[in-house]
């Protein structure tokens, strides 16, 4: 693996990790809201 390839892979992994964190955070909020909404 060339240094350039390594850099690109790491950049992609970083951006995917950020997006995944956002999605997981959003889902946590959504599931909390669904639970509250179904209790009302």
């Amino acid at each position: 693996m060339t240094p350039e390839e390594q850099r690109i892979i790491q950049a992609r992994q970083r951006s995917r990790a950020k997006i995944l964190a956002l999605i997981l955070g959003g889902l946590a909020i959504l599931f909390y809201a669904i639970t509250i909404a179904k209790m009302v």
Partner: protein
Amino acid sequence: MTNIEQRPDVLASEAPLLMSERAASSVPMPADWRDLLALTKPRVLTLVVFTGLCGLLIAPGHISPVLGFTAILCIALGAGAAGALNQWYEVDRDAKMKRTAQRPLPAGRMERDTALHFGVGLACFSVLLLGVATNWFAAAILAVSILFYVFVYTIWLKPRTAQNIVIGGAAGAFPPMIGWAAVTGDVAALPIALFMLIFFWTPPHFWALALFVRMDYANAGIPMLPVVAGEVATRRQIFAYTSIMAVAALAPVLLQLTGLIYGVTALLATGVFAAMALQVGLRREDDPTRMGPERRLFKYSVLYLFLMFGAVVIDHWVYAS
């Protein structure tokens, strides 16, 4: 092995990996998240989300905004999953078509298995979440629509018959029914009428497109109507299906399921659609570069569906209150 050179918009910073280096490289690249998003066909999703939302808004009864939002999210995720699985299955055909050759899979920017896992995961998640958040009847319709799109349309009909989009069009007609079912737990005459409207709208919409990308379909070996039956027969069929669509469009007001606002909108918007379809039907033009009326019909058909469903919602708000 994925190809990281064919995404200039996304990977400008990755440009230094030049052709020579890429040729020597054998390292599989992880898929870019933007390519995963592209797998869901975001542009198609807008119409799916809008019609699903309209079905939800006109349904009798009450749904919490959170649960309503979740229902629409699930419709979008389910449709995105179907799109991803469609691209996973059609990678060889997409590679032969100019219109689809730059999609993530045929362009080599993503492993095929990634698309399969993404599509199956998203499909299961959307159905389960819809079932938990609203009801299992709505979830079952969503599951049927995904399975119908993947197995009946993509795998079975599309490569075999020119009637592929006539029958396969049902898959795209489910969202208003799912939106309605998410609120009520059942279906009624109005969501069925809206299902029929999208069902009969699909053939003229896709055949107008197929007329000006006919060579693409022919090269990919997809038996779209213009490829197997010719241009003249397709033009005739566009007008014939537009006539049936017009009946479906006016049915809600004739059956007194909607009021005057929808009725007037349906009359005017469908009249314009029919006039454009008639123009396309009467033309004899084989050159894709001279297909102005066909392109206009295709573009208008998208606007038409937004107008019709927007009118149903406004009509409901005005006359139901």
